[in-house]
């Protein structure tokens, strides 16, 4: 059974909030909107977001690392938020595994939000229904969009290209390969939710300097000046300018 999901690369995510902002922009005016805001220009603005970015620091000072964690609904394969819904408004689609809320049936009891260990559902106080990431279902199947645009808004906008979208059950998909190659992981694996969204871990970047040192030209190399003269355009003229007095002195010698 296909299971569409997002795969987010924590190694490249720079925490710029572009995905969250574009998610809000797309969804507030699209089929599952609006995403109501309260007091947007006031002292304590509050509103519904499908996607929020968290920033964490690991390690002990000075050996610390900061990483960003974009968190939207993980479209869990064993979604605990679905069976608790008394009206069936919360449901998981058979054909692509996307978890959605039918706003016409939702009575706003909030029990589904209580049953999501990730805090990925947000109640809209204006519409009085529960809202959550739709995996941009109104984009990915929209045939009026050019094929390259039939992707979630957050994926398209990410400037670091840290977000990928696809069917994690299809061995030929980009996301399947990424999860396999980069050992993608999920949040809260012990909760029995089996999330579909995966994260790609941070990678230690190690550079073998010894290998590079062979090719590095150091100033104590007798050829150093020679190489600079030949390969750095303008270096020769700068040098002549600087060395002017020395040259005139040399002329006097013989």
């Amino acid at each position, binding site marked *: 059974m296909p299971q569409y999901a997002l795969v987010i690369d924590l190694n490249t995510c720079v925490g710029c909030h572009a995905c969250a902002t574009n998610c809000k922009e797309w969804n507030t005016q699209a089929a599952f909107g609006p995403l109501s805001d309260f007091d947007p220009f006031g002292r304590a603005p509050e509103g519904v977001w499908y996607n*929020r970015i968290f920033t964490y620091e690991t390690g002990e000072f000075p050996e610390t690392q900061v990483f960003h964690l974009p*968190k939207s609904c993980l479209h869990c394969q064993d979604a605990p938020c679905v069976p608790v819904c008394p009206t069936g408004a919360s449901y998981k689609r058979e054909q692509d595994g996307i978890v959605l809320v039918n706003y016409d049936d939702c*009575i706003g*009891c909030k029990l589904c939000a209580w049953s999501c260990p990730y805090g990925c559902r947000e109640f809209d106080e204006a519409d009085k229904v529960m809202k959550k990431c739709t995996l941009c279902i109104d984009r990915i199947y929209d045939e009026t969009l050019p094929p390259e645009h039939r992707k979630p808004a957050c994926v398209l906008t990410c400037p670091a290209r840290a977000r990928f979208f696809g069917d994690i059950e299809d061995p030929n998909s980009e996301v399947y390969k990424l999860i396999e190659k980069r050992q993608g992981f999920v949040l*809260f694996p012990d*909760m029995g939710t089996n999330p579909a969204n995966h994260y790609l871990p941070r990678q230690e970047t190690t550079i073998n300097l010894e290998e590079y040192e062979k090719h590095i030209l150091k100033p104590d190399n007798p050829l150093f000046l020679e190489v600079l003269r030949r390969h750095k355009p303008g270096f020769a003229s700068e040098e002549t300018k600087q060395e002017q007095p020395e040259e005139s002195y040399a002329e006097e010698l013989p």
Partner: protein
Amino acid sequence: MHPPISLIFFFLTAGTSIGLFIFVYFIEFLKLFGKGQGLPKEVVLLSGVISLILIGAGAIGASFHLGHKLRAWKAVKRFHTSWLSREAVFSGAYGLTLLIYLVIKYFDISPFFEHFFGILTWILGVLSGFSTAMIYASNKFVLEWNTGITVIYYLLMYLMLGSSAFTIISYYYNLPYTGTFLFLTFLFVLLGFGFRLAFNIRQFYIKRPTLNEALNLPHNRPVRVIDKGSTTDNFCTTEFYYEKGKQMLPTFIPLAYLFTFIIPLFLLVYIWITGTVNQYLLWVIYLSILIGSAIERWCFFVEGNHVQNLFYGLYPEEGYKLRKGFMERKETRTSLYG
């Protein structure tokens, strides 16, 4: 968790309604086998009407918790998976069969149907209470609630409210059950006290997940929340973490214990020792349990910590410890930069 006042109201009204009916019909049921004297028709009708009004008021009150009240009927659709749906079905059916029972009783239509609907209402009442408790007890993500103690305490609360309310009725009508129900109230309050204590003590020993588990990081790596994505609160931080309530908890838990258990137990013992019983004492006992239960339910919500708070750095790290006589959380990180 943020305590919804409408649900606390429902607990109290449904608790008194179902609790009262459990005892009223039980006495009637025993008469079926020639045991006991049953109840005068007037008492059955009066207490039945009280139960009916209370469950109706409770249902209306609880609907204020919903975003869309007029769609509340749709809550019957997922009976096979959702405890909330079961609660809606059972409590609705309880109200309906109670009404039928009262009509049959009033017009003396048929003893068979009277008892048929009596038994049905009794079972539906118990099932309704059980389903309500299961909504909380089945939530794996609020570990304080996720225990059988929640269910047992909840049903005991119904029995406490019901038996103390029935004692008043029994006293007014000079029925021979006042002494028995004083004892039953004492028993249920005492049991409730034990289970509420167990509920609190258990919180010391819950094995709590950590932020490392939430983020799927190795356990030995320190992790801190640096930023939660927005400068102000959002639905998740207000619904799942009630900061003001957490600060008031050390005052409210002792108050809940005082009103729900200590005052009623004291008064019951006083009645036994002095042999004086009057309507004021019985009313004080019932109202004390009622007010205490309201505070207790409020605490029940505030004490619940949802695991999603881990992502915000708002989840308690270790158990509780007793300090200065209060329950207080040890090394709780409520600051984002803790």
